[in-house]
């Protein structure tokens, strides 16, 4: 069992293998504790979507996507956003191919209904990945725990979906500051849970709940941000 804990520096093939096991189907929760890990994961998703031909639909809550892209620009990481389909939820700055727009809605059922209408129009006929950015902002603005519970029930319904994979990239420090910390519940519902942390200049992925771990006997993956830039650059 010791080798479970030996971190190994990863190759692009490893990452592709890991991501390919994420879809289709299921809900993936990525909890970000690292400083700039979300930005790298986001750019990996865009590249992997292009390589695999699987459509990426980003639900961009309150301008979270343009914040990450501003960071990537400053880091000198070039990403081609033109093929990424984006559904804007609130916010005003557009990145990528914006295919739908909904106003922020305090009632999760109304929100979900509007979102599904937009997804229906945006989605391809085959498998796709639905990446949600800024869930922490939605949760902060959803007043009361009742709304959060309703939201989880709606997320639960996505677990069995066989054509789409839903990925929530959540900023852990922001969520922890909320009066009601929704992470334990989200983790319980999720098919896979991955935590991102900094390890010196490397990015560490802790596979906290993952089919990949069971199959490959690995719980930690180390990524070098500079390496990632080179793979995709």
């Amino acid at each position, binding site marked *: 069992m010791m080798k479970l804990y030996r971190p190994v520096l990863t190759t692009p093939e490893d990452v592709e293998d890991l991501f390919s096991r994420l879809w289709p189907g299921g809900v993936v929760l990525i909890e970000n504790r690292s*400083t*700039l890990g979300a930005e790298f994961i986001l750019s990996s998703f865009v590249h992997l979507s292009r390589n695999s031909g699987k459509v990426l639909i980003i639900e961009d809550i309150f301008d979270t996507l343009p914040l990450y892209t*501003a*960071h990537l620009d400053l880091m000198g990481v070039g990403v081609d956003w033109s093929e990424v389909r984006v559904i804007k939820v609130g916010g005003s*700055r557009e990145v990528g191919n914006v295919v739908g727009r909904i106003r922020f809605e305090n009632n999760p059922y109304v929100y979900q209904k509007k979102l599904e209408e937009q997804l229906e129009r945006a989605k391809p006929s085959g498998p796709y990945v639905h990446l949600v950015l800024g869930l922490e902002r939605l949760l*902060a603005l959803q007043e009361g725990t009742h709304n959060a519970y309703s939201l989880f029930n709606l997320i639960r319904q996505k677990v069995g979906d066989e054509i789409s994979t839903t990925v929530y990239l959540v*900023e852990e420090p922001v969520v922890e*500051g909320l009066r009601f910390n929704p992470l334990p519940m989200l983790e319980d519902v999720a098919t896979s849970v991955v935590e991102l942390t900094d390890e*010196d*200049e490397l990015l560490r992925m802790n596979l906290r709940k993952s089919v990949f771990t069971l199959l490959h006997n690995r719980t930690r993956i180390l990524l070098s941000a500079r390496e990632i830039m080179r793979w995709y650059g």
Partner: protein
Amino acid sequence: MEWKRAFEIADAILPGETVLVEYTTSYLPEFFLKFFVEYSRERRIPLLIDDDFDSLHTILAHAKFLELEIDLDDVYVLKTGGRIELGNIVARVPFHPDPRVYLRNYEEASIKALERIPAPFINLVLGLETIFFPVRSPLELYHILLSIQRFVGNRKRKAFYLINRAVMENLPHNPLPELERIATTLMVLKPYHTGADLSIKKAVNPVLNGMKTKVDAGRWSG
């Protein structure tokens, strides 16, 4: 005063960055201000200070006690609220407890200010905490946060937001986790008797990432 290390760090910040500088109870703001006044003069980069609710006055008054001379002759000031005017005021922003009204005022004023100041310039934000005081709901909090976020990547400026960590954390709606996530560089200053330990927790410029250093006031004159 020996600023060499601090100069190198400030040089490594890229235009368009939003730098968050966190400190705790100490005279760090006084030295921080003095540093940027000197840095701006030495590097010939204009300095614009956001002076929220007379924060600048407070810092200068303390500096006087410390016999620390800070010369604001060449400094531009964008003033929100407060009464005591220092430096060259380029615009006054009427404060309003509704963030939507205030932020509209701020954006209008800052467009006016930006026209007068040659880019790229340094934007030092003092007293940001006071802008968050009247926040009553998460929605109001996010109005302010998104407005700060909209400046990220604006290559006309290198912005430094100096904030007291403890003050922020104790607000009813704590903006700190979001501010840290929005920031392109995060510096934490830990004071000791004659200086501070500076550690860089986050940086888009890999040269700075993970850096730890000391910035010592040592002896100063005038």
